[in-house]
């Protein structure tokens, strides 16, 4: 049971988050809801990237913290490179979210609605 969970639980979490986010983006009409969906997709992607850098016996990649963390005389740290990539991805996600919200607020000021369908009709 434990082995099964270790292998699969993080993958299930990340993939279902990506799926839920994609579903929101594809079906919802409210602009703010679409941005919520984009955020959830981003969380799922980050989780996926961290999960494939991990090993059940791994310790965190910090020298001063791992001094006494030998497992059976052997030690493995989680792969730090994907972690650094995810740091970057999180910050980029914040930037995109802020810009999208600014555009959304602007759209509400000018069209008086956040519904994508109504905006399309107003353009015609």
């Amino acid at each position, binding site marked *: 049971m*434990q082995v099964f*969970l*270790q292998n699969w*639980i*993080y993958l*299930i*979490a990340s993939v*279902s*988050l990506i799926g*839920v*986010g994609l*579903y*929101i983006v594809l079906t*919802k*009409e*409210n602009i*703010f*809801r679409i*941005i*919520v969906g984009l*955020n*959830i997709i981003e*969380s799922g992607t*980050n*989780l996926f990237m*961290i*999960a494939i*850098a*991990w090993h059940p016996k*791994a*310790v*965190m*990649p*910090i020298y001063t913290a791992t001094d006494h963390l030998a497992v059976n005389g052997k030690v493995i*740290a*989680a792969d730090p490179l994907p*972690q650094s990539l*995810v*740091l970057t991805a*999180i*910050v980029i*996600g*914040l930037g995109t*979210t*802020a810009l999208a*919200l*600014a555009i*959304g*607020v602007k759209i*509400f000021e000018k069209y*008086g*609605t*956040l*519904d994508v369908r109504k905006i399309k009709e107003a353009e015609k």
Partner: protein
Amino acid sequence: MIIYVATIVVIVIIITSLIAVFSKKLLSSIISMGLVSLGVSGLFFFLQAPDVAITEAAIGAGLSTAIFVIALKKVKKGETKDEE
């Protein structure tokens, strides 16, 4: 042992993300997005990535949600009701 805690967190995250899909109010869907971020940051900690966990908690769960709520307040000022 910690994997069972992680499993519970994962179940909570998935349920919360489903709330984000089906909730009628925009505010509750935004809050559940923040909760998803918070749960994911907890998972990062279980996955031995404390740097990422702190960053996600501060940026993804904290500031991102705050900006969201501020923007939502700005939109609500208009008279038009805009729930789906």
